[in-house]
């Protein structure tokens, strides 16, 4: 039964990883870049939500509702002001700039909030759970996070396939120049892609902050998990990202069941195994 529990927890955890990862996946699909500060923006969102909740007395959910659009706007601006320029400089520039950004964010947070671990206080919900049997109980928060992740992914999928802008994002991901020929304003599109990435990663950061404690230094680990989810699932496919997140979550919780010290290592090993034996990922991008 403990094993069933580990599996269920792993799948639920995978939802959170997919939430962290989908922005990475979209930005890479559209612009072919990885924002190395992706995880740090999630942490930034968590701290902002913490401050908003602290200052206004709003619950963390409402604080999240305020913070997410703010991060989306930050993403759009960041794209227009910094990333767009870096795209024109050369292949290294974006990586280096976002890496610099990552270090800046971590240290600004460190200076502002200190290195103490914090948590978003969600009261009773933190410990409330759906008891299925003596061994197996599902935390409501984990369930909510998972459902949110699925809703976000379905929403993104619909956005990409049904709306004008979404279609253009996909077109631009296929062939940026041909997209310009049919009227794509690439800078605006890239801004939109980045703001989607920031909104989703902010949501992920806030959800994370409700279930675990966080401090300024945890961003890079979030980036790595997100990245692993994307690669395991297969580049350019949102469903792949969800599957990748779940595989990663499963690997971690199941290995943790053997030996807690193996948790992280198991996730990385799965990632490296996929890289070695199935580099296109478990669910490669559809071409239908």
């Amino acid at each position, binding site marked *: 039964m403990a094993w069933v529990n580990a599996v269920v927890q792993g799948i639920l955890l995978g939802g959170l990883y997919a939430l962290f990862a989908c922005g990475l996946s979209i930005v890479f699909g559209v612009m072919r870049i990885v924002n190395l500060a992706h995880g740090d923006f999630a942490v930034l969102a968590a701290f902002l939500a913490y401050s908003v909740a602290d200052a206004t007395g709003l619950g963390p959910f409402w604080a999240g509702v305020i913070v997410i659009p703010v991060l989306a706007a930050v993403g759009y601006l960041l794209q227009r002001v910094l990333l767009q320029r870096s795209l024109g400089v050369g292949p290294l520039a974006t990586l280096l700039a976002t890496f610099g950004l990552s270090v800046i964010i971590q240290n600004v947070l460190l200076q502002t909030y200190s290195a103490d671990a914090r948590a978003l206080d969600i009261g009773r919900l933190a410990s409330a759970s759906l008891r299925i049997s003596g061994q197996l109980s599902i935390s409501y928060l984990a369930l909510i996070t998972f459902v949110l992740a699925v809703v976000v992914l379905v929403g993104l999928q619909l956005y990409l396939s049904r709306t004008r802008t979404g*279609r253009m994002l*996909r077109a631009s991901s296929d*062939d940026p120049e*041909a997209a*310009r*020929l049919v009227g794509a304003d690439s800078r605006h599109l890239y801004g939109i892609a980045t703001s989607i990435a920031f909104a989703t990663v902010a949501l992920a950061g806030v959800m994370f902050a409700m279930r675990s404690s966080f401090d300024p230094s945890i961003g890079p680990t979030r980036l790595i998990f997100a990245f692993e989810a994307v690669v395991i699932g297969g580049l350019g496919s949102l469903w792949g990202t969800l599957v990748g997140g779940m595989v990663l979550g499963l690997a971690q919780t199941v290995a943790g069941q053997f030996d807690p010290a193996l948790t992280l290592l198991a996730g990385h090993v799965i990632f490296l195994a996929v890289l070695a034996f199935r580099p296109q990922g478990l669910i490669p991008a*559809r071409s239908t």
Partner: protein
Amino acid sequence: MTLLEISDLYAYHGQLAAISALDLTVEEGQTLAVIGANGAGKSTLLRTIAGVMPAGAGSIRFDGRDITRLPAHHRVAAGIALVPEGRRLFPSLSVEENLLVGGYRRRPGPWNVDRVMELFPWMAQRRRQSAAGLSGGEQQAVAIGRALISNPRLLLLDEVSLGLAPVVVRRIYQVLPEILRAGTTALLVEQDVAQALRVADHVHCLLEGRTVLRGRPGELAREQIERAYFGVDARRQPAAAPGGSGSADASDPAGAGDPAGASDPAGAGDESGAIPRQAGPNPAGSGASEPSASEPGPAGAGPAGKADEEVTG
């Protein structure tokens, strides 16, 4: 009324001037064919007009408005649509989505998805299919449809026959008049000279980025066109053109797309192989690596191109 007016245009790929001192006008409702051998600069010209290639110098006016520095997407909105060389459909989008994307900056006008599907009836049944799974001719039809849906005033077509079977090419050229009947102005690039002459009101021949011949198809002798196409006329020019001796820097040997017979444009005659390599001694003795380089003067100086016009046009 003049719809497109290009004057003294230059466009560069790095150091190489792919378009030099080009003047060109297209009247509203006209169909202009740009011909030229491989590497003549035809695609570069269309891409510069569409705005995905920057103009190095000179100006492009569209409907009286200077669009030289206008970003590509604004040009689409203004009514310029390019069917790019090699079709460039979006492979992860379906046929219908490719068309829909073409209407991203749709102007009011007759064309929409249904109308395009009327033009190419097979599309309706295969609208959900991935564009990547289509045959070359089908892809070309979608590419044309994608451009049409923006309801352009000026349609730029880059080698729509490239890589297609003759039957398919014929079919595409059959629908072309139907497309243009609505009053759309067209600027088409074609290597199949005979085909180009058949549909165009005007022809414009490029050689290494310069105009070497222009006129109405009826007024041009076949031989005249062949010569311009392969650059024989250029060689008849006094090669000691002003500045011709100072070209030792050889930084710009326009020889990349050597207009030799290799291109063999269909229907342009068979004697082609005999013409190019016979070039006489190159009196300028420029340091260009290919002795047959037909570039008479230093790139960018421009006089040769101008002179050609006088001779031939």
